[in-house]
């Protein structure tokens, strides 16, 4: 047993019931310890059962920690500082997620740590807070979102919702004036059930209660966002007459409360999955709406490829533009579509959560304290310079920062094309910050390689299946928060995206939300989306024989260049 203080032998607990001096172990009450939770503005005293994990004790007290893996020690997101005289040994998950220095400081994974004595755990807001924040208009967003005012009642307001796996985006839209009133982005609390969609739908399929909790998680978050929008941005709740929701198929089925288990069966991956709720009363109740507003869950394309990709495609005008145009939404499941002038070839690639900053030992989502840019100095011996969100102390690397680090290590010779680190770095990792808190390990390179190989291979499969292998792209649209800080040159160097003239690249952070707003503004949404649905061809990479070969080739850190790229 690991001890952080002087060893104490614990005396066995004796029952006092009856005159018997024998210790009847079956009647022994479970050993309990106190767990002091140190929060930023308060301290709470909880009780912890022997053998219970810190995360579990916190959950029971309503303190939900972010976990992208469902709490099995996979994602490293629940890193907390724990002080206890007696703690279990480090588990394999912790060996993987925690560096030596972190362990020395008493950092453990809350889901793995099981104190055998009284303990104290330190939590900060980032562990548990969902944090709704105003969404900046992306440069192209305002232009795309504006449309001709629709002929409706003067105060008609629409609500657009992009229900993402990791982030939820919500906006209030003035239907009469044809413009966005306000928008918010926040973290999807369903992440405590798992980072990726498969983990969540597996959990939902295993238990009705879990399915309910997952749905309530999303509903509750949206309710919060609507309240924030009302209170701070002054739209009128009773003027809401339309709500449009887009998302990937898994998210929509969980919200609708049905059919998520179908997504676990490969035979359904090529067909459309019904995502409309049997009735919308549960949603109306959650959002304090009467019968008047229409609630429209926009149907996905097929399999995992959802209506968020449809909305993003709409917002970017992809199918009205020239061939070959590519749109990529990087995430745990990255959605990718290629317009070749006739068809929209669409797919979903699961590469792991590296783009969300997860699965990387020093990674984190793009929140306060996240390092979004890393610039390596021209001469060695100097530390890289870091750009940090919120300008505070660096707490972890965001996805774009990870790309910068891999490119920088490659360029400076600390890592080779196979992804193998030099001996000097391999032992302790490559230190990024003066404080020595952020250390990029060799297995972080491996995690990144797998994620980018999946996306690069998906792009190549779409090019090949559409008969365009080796052709030149005229346009690349990158969606999502990941793209916001992404450095194109570094992305080219590691083979994340095809090499192309940077002026052909566009970054649309809230493309799916913008698309939902266009759907809100349309008198006939079905007609608006018909061209996209008609020309869409969904591919399932798991069923495609060339994907694996391309995946292996794209593990290597080198530019993704083919004949037509420049």
């Amino acid at each position, binding site marked *: 047993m690991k001890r952080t203080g002087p060893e104490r032998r614990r005396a066995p607990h004796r029952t006092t019931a009856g005159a018997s001096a024998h210790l009847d172990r079956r009647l022994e009450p479970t050993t309990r310890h106190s767990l002091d939770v140190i929060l930023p503005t308060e301290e709470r005293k909880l009780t912890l059962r022997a053998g219970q994990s810190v995360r579990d004790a916190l959950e029971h007290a309503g303190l939900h920690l972010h976990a992208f893996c469902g709490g099995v020690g996979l994602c490293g997101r629940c890193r907390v500082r724990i002080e206890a005289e007696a703690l279990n040994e480090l588990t394999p998950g912790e060996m993987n997620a925690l560096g030596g220095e972190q362990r020395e400081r008493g950092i453990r994974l809350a889901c793995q740590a099981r104190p055998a004595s009284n303990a104290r755990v330190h939590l900060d807001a980032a562990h548990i807070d969902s944090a709704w924040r105003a969404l900046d208009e992306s440069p192209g967003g305002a232009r795309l979102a504006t449309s001709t005012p629709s002929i409706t009642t003067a105060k008609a307001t629409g609500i657009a919702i992009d229900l993402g796996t990791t982030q939820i985006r919500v906006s209030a839209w003035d239907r009469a004036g044809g413009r966005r009133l306000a928008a918010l982005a926040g973290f999807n609390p369903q992440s405590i059930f798992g980072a990726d969609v498969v983990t969540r739908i*597996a959990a939902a399929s295993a238990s009705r209660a879990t399915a309910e909790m997952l749905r309530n998680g999303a509903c509750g978050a949206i309710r919060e966002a609507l309240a924030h929008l009302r209170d701070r941005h002054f739209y009128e709740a009773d003027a809401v007459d339309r709500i449009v929701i887009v998302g990937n198929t898994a998210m929509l089925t969980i919200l609708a409360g049905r059919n998520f288990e179908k997504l676990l069966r*490969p035979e359904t991956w090529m067909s459309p999955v019904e995502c409309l709720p049997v009735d919308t009363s549960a949603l109306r109740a959650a959002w304090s709406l009467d019968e008047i507003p229409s609630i429209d869950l926009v149907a996905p394309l097929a399999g995992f490829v959802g209506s968020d990709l449809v909305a993003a495609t709409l917002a970017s005008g992809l199918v009205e533009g020239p061939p070959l145009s590519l749109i990529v939404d990087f995430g745990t499941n990255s959605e990718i579509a290629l317009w070749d002038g006739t068809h929209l070839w669409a797919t979903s690639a699961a590469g792991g959560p590296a783009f969300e900053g997860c699965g990387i030992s020093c990674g984190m989502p793009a929140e306060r304290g996240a390092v979004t840019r890393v610039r390596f100095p021209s001469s060695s011996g100097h530390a890289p310079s870091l750009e940090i969100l919120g300008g505070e102390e660096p707490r972890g690397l965001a996805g774009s920062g990870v790309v910068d680090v891999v490119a920088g290590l490659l360029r400076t010779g600390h890592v080779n094309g*196979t992804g193998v680190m030099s001996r000097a770095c391999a032992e302790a990792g490559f230190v990024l910050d003066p404080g020595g808190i952020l250390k990029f390990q060799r297995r972080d390179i491996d995690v990144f*390689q797998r994620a980018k190989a999946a996306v690069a291979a998906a792009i190549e499969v779409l090019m090949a299946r559409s008969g365009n292998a080796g052709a030149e792209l005229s346009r690349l649209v990158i969606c999502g928060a990941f793209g916001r800080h992404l450095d194109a040159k570094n992305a080219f160097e590691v083979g994340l995206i095809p090499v192309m003239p940077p002026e052909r690249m566009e970054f649309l952070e809230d493309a799916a939300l913008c698309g939902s707003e266009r759907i809100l503004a349309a008198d006939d949404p079905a007609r608006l989306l018909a061209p996209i649905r008609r020309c869409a061809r969904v591919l399932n990479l798991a069923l495609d024989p060339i994907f*694996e070969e391309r995946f292996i080739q794209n593990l290597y850190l080198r530019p993704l260049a083919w004949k037509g790229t420049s």
Partner: protein
Amino acid sequence: MNRAHIRAYNEAVYDTDRQRAMGIVEAALGDGASPEQVIFELVVPAMEEMIRSISVDFDANLAQHFMTAQIASEVTDAMIARFAHPPAITGRIVIGTAYGDMHSLGKRIVIGCLKARMIEARDLGVNVSPERFVDEAVQANASVIGISAMMVHTARGEEGCLGVRRILRDRGLEGHIRVVVGGAPFRFDPGLAAAVEADAWAPDGVSASRIIEDMVKEVRL
């Protein structure tokens, strides 16, 4: 086998340099090594070396794992063609990815490495039902069933290893056929393999080939 060749081959595999590895094989043959020696004194020891360094400290990435298997498989194919006598098969296994799961790279690595160990592996593909695992194992006269599962629900599910165990038990085959599992869920939850009633689990494809070899020899005794 010349020590210099062993060192050079290990480095080539570590660097995932297929061509260099092939060059060293040719050099070794030129120096008088037999095709059998190339496999048993060069290829397999290089695999063992990788397994050793993985167990000490996760030293190899996916690209390296894959190329180790790929090079081993290619060299073995080339060498077997030149064997003086047809090689003795150490054993037979069937291997596939669990029901509902489509990840195939892991088992591909296992199969490549097994080739060098003279173990015949019948690849059942992906999304394999427990019934099919057992039927094919019986038909192939296999002593081991290898199940790859990359997602928690396919690793844990009733149609995964648990299903295979149930059918083996129902058909009275437990003494004759062992079950080995592998995949990320098993690596992150060491209790999982036991919970799904596997006989053994492997943390990666290269290590799996060694665990399977041991198991095949065990069942033979």
